[in-house]
């Protein structure tokens, strides 16, 4: 229950204080903030690093065009000789047909040896593209290690997006770590914003001081020009300058008024920055809840028995799984192997 300032005033007057009031609340001490996380992997890049990388990868546009023209020419040549290439492929395939049929058992054996539970990896975008016409046998299109890693990463990311897999436990995905970073970073940035506001306040104060000096000088000039224009009415410049000085007399005061208004806005902005502190404390409260929940779950799942991990069945009767065999499948398999 929050109290208004009026209620607090009432309490200050001793009207509302009772010994049997609600018990003293538990004093919440914010958890000490952990040291800033230094990430070895995924280190963020500065603008300079990015510019350097861009410079390294930049290719003059003319060069790019030339390259693309060359590529097109090469493509055209290859398409002109497409019949020859097809023939050579056919020849090579007929030559290798015998070898392939000889190796088919080995390939089947290797396929049989694979774990059926391995899910099919999605086809990488590069693999979807139209295959190049190549005289090499199809066996050569087995993806390289980096390509395999890319395929695996795509698949894993897809599973994470669908909620099948959880996020990997990394510094960037640890909730309390991230919240702590948010609290610390925003504190630093708020301090910098405060620096900017303070600088503007200081500059405004300087402007006001100078404006006051200007005002004093103008008043003296007006008095001087007034007396001079009275003494020498024939000299028009005295009168002209007097009129100019009189017209400018309001300017310094106007500057002071405007900077005063600006200062009050700045003070208001500074007051509003209290919400940063309030929000930080809200974040710390969430962190505290998460930590307590973590402790609770640890306690809940803690196993005090001498339990060792045991092998568990993959397929049990009653499972909804297309890999389960019925009696007929079982008999057929046994008969097929003939053991």
């Amino acid at each position, binding site marked *: *229950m929050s109290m208004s300032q009026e209620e607090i005033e009432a309490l200050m007057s001793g009207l509302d204080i009772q010994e049997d009031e609600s018990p003293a609340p538990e004093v919440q001490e914010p958890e000490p903030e952990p040291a800033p996380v230094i990430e070895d992997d995924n280190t963020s890049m500065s603008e300079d690093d990015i510019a350097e990388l861009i410079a390294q990868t930049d290719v003059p546009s003319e060069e790019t065009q030339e390259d693309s023209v060359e590529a097109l020419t090469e493509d055209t040549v290859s398409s002109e000789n497409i019949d020859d290439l097809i023939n050579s492929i056919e020849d090579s395939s007929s030559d290798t047909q015998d070898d392939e049929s000889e190796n088919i058992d080995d390939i089947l054996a290797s396929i049989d040896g694979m774990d059926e539970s391995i899910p099919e990896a999605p086809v990488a975008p590069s693999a979807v593209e139209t295959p190049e016409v190549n005289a090499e046998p199809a066996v050569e299109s087995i993806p390289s290690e980096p390509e395999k890693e890319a395929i695996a990463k795509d698949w894993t990311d897809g599973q994470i997006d669908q909620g099948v897999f959880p996020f990997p436990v990394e510094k960037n995905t640890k909730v309390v770590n991230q919240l702590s970073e948010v609290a610390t970073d925003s504190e630093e940035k708020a301090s910098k914003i405060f620096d900017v506001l303070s600088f503007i306040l200081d500059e405004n104060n300087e402007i006001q001081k100078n404006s006051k000096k200007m005002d004093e000088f103008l008043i003296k000039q007006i008095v001087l020009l007034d007396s001079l224009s009275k003494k020498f009415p024939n000299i028009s410049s005295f009168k002209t300058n007097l009129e100019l000085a009189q017209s400018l007399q309001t300017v310094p005061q106007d500057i002071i008024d405007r900077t005063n208004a600006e200062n009050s806005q700045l003070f208001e902005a500074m007051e509003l920055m209290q919400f940063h*502190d309030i929000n930080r404390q809200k974040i710390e409260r969430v962190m505290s809840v998460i930590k307590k929940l973590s402790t609770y779950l640890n306690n809940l799942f803690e196993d005090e028995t001498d339990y060792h991990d045991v092998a568990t069945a993959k397929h049990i009767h009653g499972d909804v799984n297309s890999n389960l065999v019925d009696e007929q499948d079982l008999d057929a398999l046994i008969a097929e192997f003939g053991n």
Partner: protein
Amino acid sequence: MKILIVDDSSTMRRIIGNVVMQLGFSRDDFDEAEDGVKAWKILGESQYDIILTDWNMPNMNGLELVQKVRSGGNHQKVPIIMITTEGGKGEVITALKAGVNNYIVKPFSAEILKEKLDGVLKK
């Protein structure tokens, strides 16, 4: 007139310092501490006329600081204003019982702090 501002948020210390300066005090008129431990150390080194403290702070919180100050020493009678986000009635009573002279709930306006400071200093 010397003022001690105790708050773990540097932004809050600056906000309070700004309001204090608006009241006519200079930068030399106040010192800052980021928790109760540092405040207690500073209080042992200099004499202050008023203490403005937050409640929730690491190491030693504001309530513990108030209790320590009121338990003895040079600042036993020095006015203390607690400036905190803790806006519950129970908290206010706890703080008053511990010995704070006035209580401000964040967010606060400059006028509120001026009023409270004036009220405390008049006594």
